[in-house]
Structures are given as structure tokens and as C-alpha cells.
């Protein structure tokens, strides 16, 4: 069994300040972990993924995430938020089954 917990349903940051979106996972297997983003009226877009290679994963648009097995975490960060980053972000885990298990989502608001 696998599960994902996104610790914040809403995060607000000012433009130019760092972004931290928190995710904890639970998996019986060595998991693959992902972050997806959904902008309004758009599909889900893959930001980055971890598949047992380097623990620090770099994604698109300046985002990165660090896999920490001891903490069962996969937090998403970005050094400097941009207005275009405002969207909903999903932490996702995939285990032995070929299904994705989604977190409940974090709505990111970027204030001018």
C-alpha cells in the first residue's frame, strides 16, 4: 500500500521569495515519486520525478525536490517564486502497481 500526504492545502508567498511545498509519503516498495502541476484550465504537467537515482531532483521552471528516505519526505522547492508559478501542485507516488497515488494538492498563491 502507498499513500501521500501534502501537509499544506494552501501556500502563499510573495514574488521573488522561496517556495516550499511539503510532501510525505508511505510506500511498501521502493517508490517512484513525482510532482505534477496544474494551472487553471490546463492539464496536469510533470514537474519532476525521482526514480531511485540522485536524491536531489531538478525539474522544469527552476523547481527541485529532495528525496529523504529517513524522513519519508519529498518536498518541492524553488528559490524565487514567479507570478506564473501560481497553480495547484500534486505530490504523487507510484509503487509496484502501475497506478499513481496522488496527494490532495497544494494551492500556491504568489503575491505581487
Amino acid at each position: 500500500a502507498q499513500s501521500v500526504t501534502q501537509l499544506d492545502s494552501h501556500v502563499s508567498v510573495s514574488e521573488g521569495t522561496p517556495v516550499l511545498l511539503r510532501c510525505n509519503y508511505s510506500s511498501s516498495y521502493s517508490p517512484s515519486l513525482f510532482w505534477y502541476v496544474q494551472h487553471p484550465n490546463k492539464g496536469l504537467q510533470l514537474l519532476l520525478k525521482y526514480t531511485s537515482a540522485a536524491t536531489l531532483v531538478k525539474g522544469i521552471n527552476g523547481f527541485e525536490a529532495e528525496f529523504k528516505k529517513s524522513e519519508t519526505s519529498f518536498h518541492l522547492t524553488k528559490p524565487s517564486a514567479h507570478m506564473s508559478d501560481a497553480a495547484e501542485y500534486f505530490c504523487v507516488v507510484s509503487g509496484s502497481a502501475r497506478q499513481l497515488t496522488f496527494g490532495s494538492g497544494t494551492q500556491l498563491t504568489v503575491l505581487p
Partner: protein
Amino acid sequence: EAGVTQFPSHSVIEKGQTVTLRCDPISGHDNLYWYRRVMGKEIKFLLHFVKESKQDESGMPNNRFLAERTGGTYSTLKVQPAELEDSGVYFCASSRYAGTGKNGELFFGEGSRLTVL
């Protein structure tokens, strides 16, 4: 290259009616998935096709839902009869490879929003 396309983008129907959602995957992608997000809940897996065969339909909620993928190209998801709790956003995704390993990536469509009144 066209992405995953879904139709309709939004459908409003009354309880008891039938709705059919369509998904056109990326050309050459044998794997096609349906997910849905009901109001206030997580996005949940419904089923997975490999070509025209149902690989995994463990997420289908009940027998009011019927998914098909004749010919292994586009897929349809029919809800008959629709109930209020079926309201939500239905996402389709496709991938060239099954699984989510090093080369695995699911490409999602924009979703079909279903409102049942």
C-alpha cells in the same frame, strides 16, 4: 506532436442521464489511463488500458461506469445512469511505456468536467 485531448471539456447533465467522455491519447502510446477527481477529494485511479485490453480496472467505482478502447486508439468512458456523486473532473493520461520507471512518464489531458444535477 498533439498532446492528450479530451472531449467534452465540460458536460452538465441531470441525474439518471448518460454521458460519454472521450480521450485521444498521444499517437503511439499504447498505455491509456483514466483518473478522476471528485469535489474536495484526491485524484484517483480508475483504470489502465494496454492497447485495447484492460490491464487494471480496480479503480472503477461501480458497474455504472464502462470504459472501452476499441482498436487500441481512442478511449471512451460512459457513465450510465449518472448519479450526483459522479460529478468531478475526469482525466485521461497516456504513456509509451507502462510503469513509472526511468523512462516512464504519463502525459495528462486537460480533463473533462462532469456536473450532474
